[in-house]
């Protein structure tokens, strides 16, 4: 399958067009970077995950929401509002609609989880995502970044999400 730029060059081939490439505009967002996404998942597990036996676990659908909001800290107010109105279906629907559409269709998250599971850094267990406590992969990613003082906003966002009540109803829908 040809890439977008290949298709474009075929279309422009033989014309008088003088293409001008602006690499800044074609550079993808950090949201699509494997390292960034791995860090966010590592941070969610470390900050919110609960150690159980030899694993640190978190509900997979909760992780899906946490990582989505961690990368978009401006949504935290919306989550707070959603949580506050969760007992009122009408109001809850208003505050959560676009947010739900966003995190539920986050396909990249599924691929990252699949990749980390395939590599043995994560396990899927009965609706939970589990990280072996002795695993050094994700732990190292998290600790190195923290030591270097990176991704403070993401870490603070995840920590503040821990203070918001997030129920299964909110995550699983109606």
């Amino acid at each position, binding site marked *: 399958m040809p890439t977008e730029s290949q298709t474009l060059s075929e279309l422009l081939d033989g014309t008088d067009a003088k293409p001008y490439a602006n690499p*800044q505009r074609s550079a993808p967002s950090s949201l699509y970077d494997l*390292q960034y996404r791995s860090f966010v998942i590592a941070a969610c597990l470390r900050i919110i995950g609960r150690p159980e036996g030899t694993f640190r676990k978190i509900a997979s659908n909760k992780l899906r929401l946490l990582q989505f909001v961690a990368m978009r800290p*401006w949504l935290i107010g919306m989550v707070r509002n959603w949580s506050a109105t969760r007992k009122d279906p009408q109001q809850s629907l208003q505050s959560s609609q676009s947010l739900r559409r966003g995190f539920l269709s986050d396909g990249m998250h599924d691929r990252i989880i699949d*990749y980390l599971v*395939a590599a043995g850094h994560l396990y899927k267990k009965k609706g939970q995502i589990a990280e072996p406590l002795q695993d050094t992969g994700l732990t190292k990613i998290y600790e190195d970044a923290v030591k270097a003082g990176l991704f403070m906003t993401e870490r603070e966002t995840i920590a503040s999400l821990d203070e918001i009540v997030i129920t299964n109803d909110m995550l699983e829908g109606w």
Partner: protein
Amino acid sequence: MITLEEIKVFGTSDLGEFTGTLSFKAGLQVISADNAFGKSLSVTAIAWCLGAEAVFGLPDNDPACFPLAVRDEVEFEDKPATHVTASTCSITLKHTDGRRLGLTRAIKGDCTRIIAEEISTTGDIRKSEFSARYLTMVDDTGGFQNFFFRWIGWPRQRTVTFKGSEAEIYAENLLPLFYIDQDEGWTDIQSLQVTRYGQQQVGEFAVEYLLGGLDATGARFDQLRAAQITGALKEKARIVAERVVNGLISNGWRIELTANGSVSDLITRWGGFDLKAVLTQQFDVDPAKDLSRLRERVDSLRRTLTEAPIDVEDVSAPISASQRVIELKRRRHKLNDDSSTSRAQVEQTEILLESLEARLAAAEDLYRLKTQGIGRIDHIECPTCHRDLDPATFALSSQSTESVENHIEALRRDRDLLARNLASMRATLATIYAELQVVSTEFREAERALMNVTDAVGTVREKLAQTAAELASAERAIDRTLEIEKNLGLWQSEIDAWVRDARAATIRAIVPADFASRNSAFTEALGTYLVAFGHSAVSLENRYSVLLNEQYTPMLNQKRLRSLGSASDQSRLIAAYTLALADASHRVNGLHPGLVVLDEPLQQNPDPKHRERFLSFLSKELAKKAPFQIIIFTSLRQAEISQLRRGGVSVLTPEGTKFLQLTMPPPTEGEPPAIPSES
């Protein structure tokens, strides 16, 4: 250049008088004694006698840097701990020209004074007493540092503080480059530097000063001063521009008056700026003309009210009063609509800007993550088949640093554009609010006028009521216009005053400093010392790649040398830096005192290789033939002492287990105190 000849600590205790002395000669010497001997006590005495306790982060005249042995309770060899009643320390310095200086300062007692005993080359002695810290540099007769700078031959150097005032370079700013103490000195280059005085770039000043680059320190001072003056002018311009623009917006006029650009650009732009002309040109506003027109109208309305004939058939008064109310109500409604649209736009843009800021922060952190080589799972393989897992199989990829850099650039541009849009939207909203306020006031007035007109009985009274309302409105408009005219005059005078101040501000031309030769002498010496110390990241081949950045931080291949090599390289780097500076200063006739004190360099890392490398350095000609004095306080094993001595290194091993020794027991009750014999 100076040589430290002696350190002495003495005092009295309940068990009698005590003293401890260490004598030194020129060149390299190692003082080896067991832990708890009192080495740190003697090292501290150097900084204390120079009145530089600020390097330990202590307030003036606070002897807390000394161990308790001289402040409270001292333990002598084979004796129980005993109370210290008084203690003092002194150092003796010898200048290259043969003059000597003894500095004595109490530790327990009145430590606010330093007694200086100058001994001339002919043996003449002059004793003076100085204030250790109070006005130490400023007081020409009583300040210790003022005296000491003159004695040693150090010129005074002005610096600039973050608060905008001028300060000077003090002894405690220079000491961290030749005095490395055990507790904190080994944590970083110039870690003892005193930052609490707020002098800008004090570390850079100190390096340039000791290398004798007085033209460089002078240029640095001029540059900082110029930056400060420019900064203050720009800040004032920003405040003036903000006040004028906001003031005009509150009247519904939005003009472009920014403080962007250099001071000279602003002088050109603002120099010919005429606020009234801009308003006339852009908004057809001329307060003088408006006033004249309003005054004419007031006169005319007064005439109508008092003496002009009234047409009894004219029934237009209620109609026109009601039409004005309707017109103003319609305008107010439109402005309300506009303001809510504008407010929503501002709110949305604020959220968008916040999201952009967050995305930018994430991208910048990701860039640092990638350039620092962290945050990566090094090797990923399938746990069952052990084949490498390619992220592309999962439609995933790790972006290159160039790609992230490009993304950051794009985000920054978007952010700046959006920030400008937001500022413009906020200004539009403020203009709408201002207009809304004016229209709302007019609307309330029109409503009152309509009420009066409709309450009036008969066309004459209706006409009179309407004219009276119009007169009141015109008079209020005069007041408003007068207020505007006054404000315009005020704002114009602020702009003019800024231009006058900016033109009057003298920014001295910065004379480019010729510091290159001194800097390269230092860089070259640093490479040599790093190799000699066995720094694991620097070899004979790459030593010329070691450079000093603008802050005089050692760099290798654009990375901080501190972050390269092993953990034990840190103390080797600091020792090499300190000695290289002394060496380079000697070569370029700098202002380094020619004395380097290293306290416990071997205790910084228990690694046997570290000891081995350090001792190997000491046996090298580079150390042994150093043209300056190096005093190292440490604790060596017997074999190491023998090895160094065999290599021709002067190792001093003081006798006994304690530096402080009892010299005279206290007088027993009823007996006169013992007098020491003359011999």
